[in-house]
């Protein structure tokens, strides 16, 4: 259960960016999470609701985009989508030297804000 630490990371970056942009309120935060990380979306949403009160992000929505893993074979160049258990070996040439292209993201993409003067 380290989603609290992840949520704190999201909040810190969001508040910094919001202050730089002269925001009065954060209404929505967009993040991308790879399915190979150990982050559960439900637990992350719960953590977000727990830590945002009394900040500029109070009441904001957290939009999570989960990313399925994709790997590329170093030998034959084949790219394929897979689950947690089928990414180590290339299904095309059976090579073992593979690079994960997507699936381990822990990224904050953008925020929606209200600015000074917004209704």
């Amino acid at each position: 259960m380290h989603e609290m630490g992840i949520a704190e990371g999201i909040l810190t970056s969001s508040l910094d960016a919001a202050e730089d942009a002269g925001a009065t309120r954060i209404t929505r935060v967009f993040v991308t999470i790879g399915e190979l990380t150990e982050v559960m979306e439900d637990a992350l949403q719960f953590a977000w609701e727990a830590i945002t009160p009394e900040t500029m992000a109070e009441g904001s929505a957290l939009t999570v985009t989960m990313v399925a893993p994709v790997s590329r074979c170093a030998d034959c160049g084949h790219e394929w989508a897979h689950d947690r258990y089928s990414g180590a070996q290339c299904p095309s040439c059976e090579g073992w030297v593979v690079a994960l292209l997507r699936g381990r993201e822990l990224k904050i993409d953008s925020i929606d804000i209200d600015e000074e003067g917004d209704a």
Partner: protein
Amino acid sequence: MKVDIEQRILAVNDELAEANRRLFAEHGVFVLDLMASPGAGKTSTILATIAALRDRYSIAVIEGDIASKVDAEKVRAHGIPAVQINTGGACHLESAMVRRAVETLDLGEIDLIIIENVGNLVCPSDFDLGESAKVIILSVPEGHDKPYKYPNIFQVSEAVILNKYDTLSVFDFDETEFREVVRSLNGQVPVFPMSATTGDGVAAWAEWLAARIDAARDGDAS
């Protein structure tokens, strides 16, 4: 209005981890992040590794636990410097905690730092500490199905220690299936069956580690 951020969520941890990694590289120190569940034999494995390598390398240990200092005391009893980190409830170590612990050590005098992470098969796998390699210990009594349940930790590890191997005959542990799942998760990661308490199998693990330490000292560590 939309404001683009495009930043790693754990940017603060990751930046400090990179700073740790540069510091270790400057001093030619190899840093091992040892991860396992509670009771898998992390401290016993550390003591067995120290016994195997202390004549060749200068070793220090960083012990991560939610509370208590019993592990650091066990290591110090063997004449090895040990720093205890108490996370105060956190389920994993972060790079800032490691940095504070490292600042109490004389890096110029050390070849190998072994970090014992908090006993947990989930959270430590997502946090970069600036280590040279992460290694997972699974013990036979935990069962061969653990890689199915905790895949990420097996994917980020550069070696797998199968501890308490001397108990294989009394547990329903399917070693063939275990190795197949590990291979499906992490290709050709080496698996070292051993018993930290009897010493069987420790030599093969220690030689793998020694080769990595030598590479770090020669300045071409990964």
